[in-house]
Each structure stands twice: as structure tokens, then as C-alpha cells.
């Protein structure tokens, strides 16, 4: 039996996606679709994503790179006449796709998002230098050298303006209670996984 316009995927989204229970409330006005700053780069703007969910297009939604185009500008949220927390739903869908391993390979924003989290999860604070170097080397070593060279002027300027600390590479910022912090995040993740049915 075809899954077309059946509620199965909608139900999954409601259970597993942050604020997913709002998807059914979209009235398809399209205001959000016209609000994304990177609008032209979305294969499916939020309005469409919501309709696709309701039309049961699980595969298409979760493999799409659309959600990864969200800049978290909250334009849509303040404009949506139905007050959908669109930004969070985009984040939530991206998270679901990532957790299921369905998100597009080599999606840069996804990589950055993971790096960012791992960076902060380690020390409790973000190490901007490691983060940026990581970003430049995400595509492998050769490309990394190229990327870093391209942005070298920026980096040096930042160092000169005392806004990037080369010493961070060897430690730098971090919180004191790291063990408590790690335990806390582990617990939170555990609860979330149970609630959202991630093994």
C-alpha cells in the first residue's frame, strides 16, 4: 500500500523531531518560504518540507540538504501566522536525518555543526581556533591547506587584533567542572534517546 498522504511519517516526525507536533498546523501560506535568507539555495523551503511530511515523503525529506540551509535567523518564526517554531523544526529534522544517517554526505553545515558540538562538549566552551582549523581540514589535508591559505589574511588579521589566540591550540578556554559537565550531557542525551526512540 502506498504511503502517499498517509500519516505515518507525520507521526514519526511528531515523536522524534523537536517541536514536530507543530507540522500539522502549517496552513501552507508560504510566508516562511519567502523569508529564508538563503532562500534560493533551499531545494524545498520550510512550507514545502511541511507539506512533504504530510504527504508521507520520508526519504525525500530526510535526505534533503534543505534543512541544513537554515541560518537560524528566526525570520520565519516571527512571521508565521500560525506561530510554528519553524527554526527548531528545521533543526530537529536535520538532527533526525543525521541520527538516522540519512543526511547528505559531506554536507558542510552538518559537519560544522558536529564539530562545534564536539568542540564544546569536550571542554565546555568553544575553542574558536580548533573549530576553524577543523573546518578547513574537513575535506582532507590537501584541500585544508588550500582553504586555510585562502583565509590566511583573515586569520592573521584576527591574531593581530587580538581576537584569535594561537595558544588555544594547546588548551585555551574551558570550564573547570568538566566531569560534572560530561556526566550531565551524557544523561541528557540518554533521556533524549529514550524519548525519541534512538537506540
Amino acid at each position, binding site marked *: 500500500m502506498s504511503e502517499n498522504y498517509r500519516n505515518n511519517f507525520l507521526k514519526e516526525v511528531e515523536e522524534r523531531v523537536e517541536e514536530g507536533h507543530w507540522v500539522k498546523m502549517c496552513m501552507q501560506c508560504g510566508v516562511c518560504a519567502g523569508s529564508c*535568507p*538563503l532562500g534560493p*539555495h533551499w531545494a524545498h523551503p520550510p512550507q514545502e518540507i511541511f507539506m512533504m511530511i504530510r504527504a508521507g515523503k520520508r526519504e525525500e525529506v530526510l535526505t534533503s540538504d534543505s534543512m541544513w*540551509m537554515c*541560518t*537560524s*535567523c*528566526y*525570520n520565519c*518564526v*516571527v*512571521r508565521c501566522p500560525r506561530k510554528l517554531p519553524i*527554526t527548531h523544526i528545521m*533543526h530537529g529534522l*536535520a*538532527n533526525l536525518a*543525521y541520527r538516522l544517517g540519512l*543526511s547528505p554526505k559531506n554536507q*558542510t*553545515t*552538518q*559537519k*560544522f*555543526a*558536529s564539530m*562545534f*558540538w564536539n568542540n*564544546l*562538549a569536550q571542554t*565546555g*566552551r*568553544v575553542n*574558536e581556533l580548533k573549530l*576553524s582549523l577543523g*573546518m578547513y581540514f574537513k575535506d582532507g589535508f590537501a584541500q585544508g591547506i588550500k582553504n586555510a591559505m585562502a583565509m590566511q589574511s*583573515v586569520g592573521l*588579521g*584576527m591574531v593581530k*587584533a*587580538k*581576537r*584569535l589566540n594561537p595558544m*588555544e591550540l594547546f588548551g585555551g*578556554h574551558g*570550564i*573547570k*567542572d568538566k566531569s*560534572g*559537565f560530561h*556526566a*550531565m*550531557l*551524557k*544523561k*541528557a*542525551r540518554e*533521556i*533524549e534517546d529514550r*524519548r*525519541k526512540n534512538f537506540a
Partner: protein
Amino acid sequence: MAKKTYSFYPGCSSQTKASSDNYLKSTNSMCKYLDIELKEIPDWNCCGASIGYAEGGELPRITLSARNMALSEQHNPGMDLVATCAACWLSTREAKERIAHSAQTLTEANTALAEAGLTYKGNQAARHMAEVLVEDFGFDELKRGVKKPLQGIKFAGYVGCQTNRPFGLAGESFENPKYLDNLVEAMGGEAVPYDQKVTCCGGALAFSEPEKSQKQIKDIIESAYDHGAEMIVTPCPLCQANVEIYQGEVNKRFGTKFNIPVTYYSQLITVAYGGTAAEAALDGQLIRATRLEEIAKK
């Protein structure tokens, strides 16, 4: 005793020698002039910004903010929690509201916090420094401290996204917030009207999707220039960084010749209040704000 005391959440980018080090320095100077005491939350952690979602998910993200708030409640009781970074403020306030709306989230967050020996109660407001200035002081009051009006300088007040949405300042419109312009005028400067005041700078995607984001940055600067601005002022460290740092890249990509300083309101206030260039951390600009430096020298 200081006139007003707040529990301060500087956030990662505002640490010493981090990307908005100048924001932190100038904020401290500004607070000195306004007789504000900022009590840093001991051992605060990163808010997760709005990019941690892929790996972090929902509850871990909320828990990050809950930890900061719990620490603040514990160590700085009776104060409002104040952040200077838009993302820090947003994450904190959002977590606060999510928890307030769901007993389940409260229980879950506290279960996680218990692992770090903390409890979240939810008895402090989560505010942005701009709110403190506008609501606790007000423009008239702020004006009173001006010693060196920023006369003749035309500013494009760039409010951007996250200081403005989804919460913003009470009574301001999302499409055309006025407080930054009012602040500029209170300091004696001129706020030019332009149409990209709340346009997104690309946020974290300036990093991961540079081509796409730099178009945003170009639009913002172009509109500021077109409307006669000679300097951009912003309340958000990410806005500041993106719009300032990538100007060279934008020039390369679009053949433009942008070279416009991007400053923080805290720098403006510090200079207008008679602070030195060092106090205003003007040396932290990649594109030097010469007009401000001149006034600071006077």
C-alpha cells in the same frame, strides 16, 4: 556600591582573546561609566549557539543553558542574568521558556543537571545587555552621560537576527526595530535609515556555506553605503564578525571595494562617555574606526 548589578554571561566569543574580545572590553568600560557591576557566572559553559543541533539534539542543548542558569541562580542570587552575545541570550531565554512550558522538560533537565550537582529553579530573568540599557536606563538617562557627542558620524544600526528575533526588545517591531538607532542618536551620532537593518548575515553558515552567506553580507554593507553610512554598529558578536571579517572576501567575490568599520554599541557609548580608544577596544577592529578614534583622542 554600584548602581546596578547583574549576573553576567559573557559567552565563548567574548572571552579574552576570542573573536569578540573587543566587545567584552568595551562592555566593561561602558559598564564602568554607567556604574554597572557585572558578576560573571562562575564556570559558565557554551550555550550551544544555534548550530549545535545536529549532534546535540534538543534536551542536551536545553541542559547547557539550564546549567548556566542554575549556576547563576546559585552564585548570583537575586540578579537578572545578562548576556552580551545574541546567541547566548537567545539560547538561554529559549531554554527558559521551553522549560517553563513543559513540566516534563523541567524534570528531564534537572535529572541531567543533577549529574553535575545542580538544580534549575527558573527564578532569574534572562536578558540582553541592550535590554538593560533601554529598559533599566532609557535613552534620556543614557544621553546624560555623553561628554563627546559622536557628532557628524553616520551610522547604519545593524540589528541583525538574534537580538531581534524571535524575542527582540519589548515594544520593538521585528521588521524595523528602532532601539539601536535611538541609541546612536542618544550618543549624538546620526542613524541613517537603510533597508537591510534586520537582514541575516548568514550566521554560522558564513563558515560552512561561505559563497551563499557572503551575498548576504554584501547586501547589508551595500545598503549601508548606499544610504550614506560611514560605520556600522551592531549588538551581536556574530554579526560584527561576519560583516567585518569577510569584507575582503566579499570584495574579491563581488568586485566591490568595501572598507566599512563595524563596531559595537558598547564601543560607541564608551567613546561618547569620554573613554579612551583602548577602553573602547578600538584596536580590536580589523577595519579601523578612525572617526571614533579621532573623537576618543580629543
